[in-house]
């Protein structure tokens, strides 16, 4: 994706950003890629990256989700029968679902020197997602105290982030054409009585994943003052 994106995207004076569209990637493989990128980024061996991809169906439990087993509504055995993996991961946030039709974004970038503020980082990610939704005519917003991007009472995108020495990993998950039925296995992010939604559900003619990825890359570069490089 980066190649045909050209250098016209984003702030011409901004920090370089590599955007990669990776297609369907197993959760473990994506974790490993992130680990390697984080180490390289910390060492200054590589520029900032935004990885855009899909996962095969998987449920992940973040740091604040441990000990909230009631947020997983079915047994692990039942999930295995349905071909859904489950992982404990070292990111913020509770429990969430990833699967085909959902664009997962993993920014691996250094917030130094001028963006060392976790609240600002999360809010900036929300801004990227809100603007992306707006590109397709969907008005999404924030809900005070509840990280993520919402359309009314329903969550369109989830956020869970990890920082090590101000290098980011994990990130966001935007429901484009996700099978929303799979969310019934969990209480997303530990929030009861709030639903999930997708661009497909909200729009008569939903955009393709590729269109959404392009919009995400563009808005990401704009919000974070990055210049997309090949």
């Amino acid at each position: 994706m980066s190649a045909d994106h050209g250098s016209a995207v984003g702030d011409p004076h901004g920090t370089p950003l590599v955007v990669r569209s990776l297609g369907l990637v197993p959760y473990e493989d994506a974790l490993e890629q992130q680990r390697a990128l984080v180490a390289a980024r910390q060492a200054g061996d590589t520029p900032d990256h935004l990885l855009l991809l899909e996962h095969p169906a998987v449920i992940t439990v973040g740091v604040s989700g441990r000990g909230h087993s009631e947020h997983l509504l079915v047994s692990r055995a039942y999930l295995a029968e349905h071909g859904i993996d489950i992982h404990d991961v070292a990111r913020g946030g509770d429990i969430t679902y990833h699967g085909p039709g959902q664009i997962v974004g993993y920014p691996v970038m250094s917030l130094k020197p001028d963006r060392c503020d976790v609240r600002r980082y999360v809010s900036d990610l929300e801004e990227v997602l809100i603007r992306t939704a707006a590109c397709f005519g969907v008005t999404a917003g924030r809900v005070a105290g509840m990280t993520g991007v919402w359309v009314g009472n329903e969550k369109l995108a989830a956020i869970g982030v990890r920082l090590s020495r101000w290098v980011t990993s994990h990130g966001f998950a935007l429901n484009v054409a996700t099978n929303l039925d799979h969310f019934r296995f969990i209480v997303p992010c530990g929030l009861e009585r709030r639903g999930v939604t997708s661009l497909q559900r909200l729009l008569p003619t939903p955009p393709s994943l590729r269109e959404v990825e392009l919009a995400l890359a563009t808005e990401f570069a704009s919000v974070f003052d990055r210049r997309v490089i090949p």
Partner: protein
Amino acid sequence: MPTDVLMPQMGESIAEGTIVRWVKNVGESIERDEPLFEISTDKVDAEIPSPAAGVVAQIRAQVGETVPVNSVVAVIGNQGEQIPAASAQVEVAEPVRLPAVSPLDTTAARPSRVAAAPRLSPLVRRLAAEHGIDPSCVNGTGEDGRVTRADVLAYVARRHSDSSDADTAAVGTSPLGETSEPLGVMRRFIAERMVASRRTAAHVHTVFDVDFSRVAARRASVSGGTRAPGYLAHIAKAVSDALVAMPVVNASLRADSVVYPRHVNLGIAVALEWGLIVPVIKAVESLSVEDIDAAIVDLSTRARAKQLAPDEVEGGTFTITNPGVFGSVYGLPIINQPQSAILCVGVIEKRPVVVDDAVVARLRSYLTLGFDHRLIDGAVADRFMVRVRDSLEERSL
């Protein structure tokens, strides 16, 4: 000398953090910059490196505990080093730890600060007390990070000059007599939207001088008892017809394509005491002038009463703003993203104009179209405005 490990401040507005995991336990050795513990704030999990090499001598905050920023959560000592008794005493004196601490609960922050006290000379301690400051807040530049007299004086000077100091931020007044208050949600939203639009769109403006005599005559001809639709309703109708005729002005740029909405959804900017809101009249192309007038009255009334439903401010495809009601002659508005154009109505007033070589008084107004040159060229914008003008002036197209 042992090194205190502090709960880091992970952002300007962040007052506390929760310990999620200790990567090292008491007695384990650690390198400088090696991960020591993990914390969680909001939905972010962060790995915190050790500030020094040595041995983890003490862990003062347990997993699950939420503690204020800058409080001591651990102490790193040298191999085989005895940790000063004073520090240990604090642990004894403070055996009960609250599971969660609110950021305003300053008493909870104190025990950890007391721990720093033994490293002060009596002079420095007295100086700090005189100025009413907590020595543990001061960055020490002396031997082994010891706080010196100069450090305290520098801190006092900085505190007086820095209005963003944590202590004064909440109060909202600076030594210069300025006052500050946190940005409200709506203000912040407007600020972000406006700057984003300026950054995104290639703004160009074109101004047309439009005669409202015919509209005035039509309004005057409405028989008594029924409300004559306002000027804004007539303008909205003319704009809507022009948008149907020239869909590109109603379109928006999305990534690498042009999106043409099915309807004309007209946003009408409404000034509020506390900001600005843009309720949207949906599918305005199917409405009469009377319907549009009723919708404008209804939406602006409910906007001021804060009674709009979320879907009534969404999905606009074009916006009209009317600063003319405040006396503005003409405006150069910012486009409401992701729309591509916005019409600004100046004051409608009688002005001298030349008609058939005679100067006469005519009811006129300057209408400005702000448009995004990425999508709409100047000639297209002007053709659009000619349509709006001719429709209001009842000239044949």
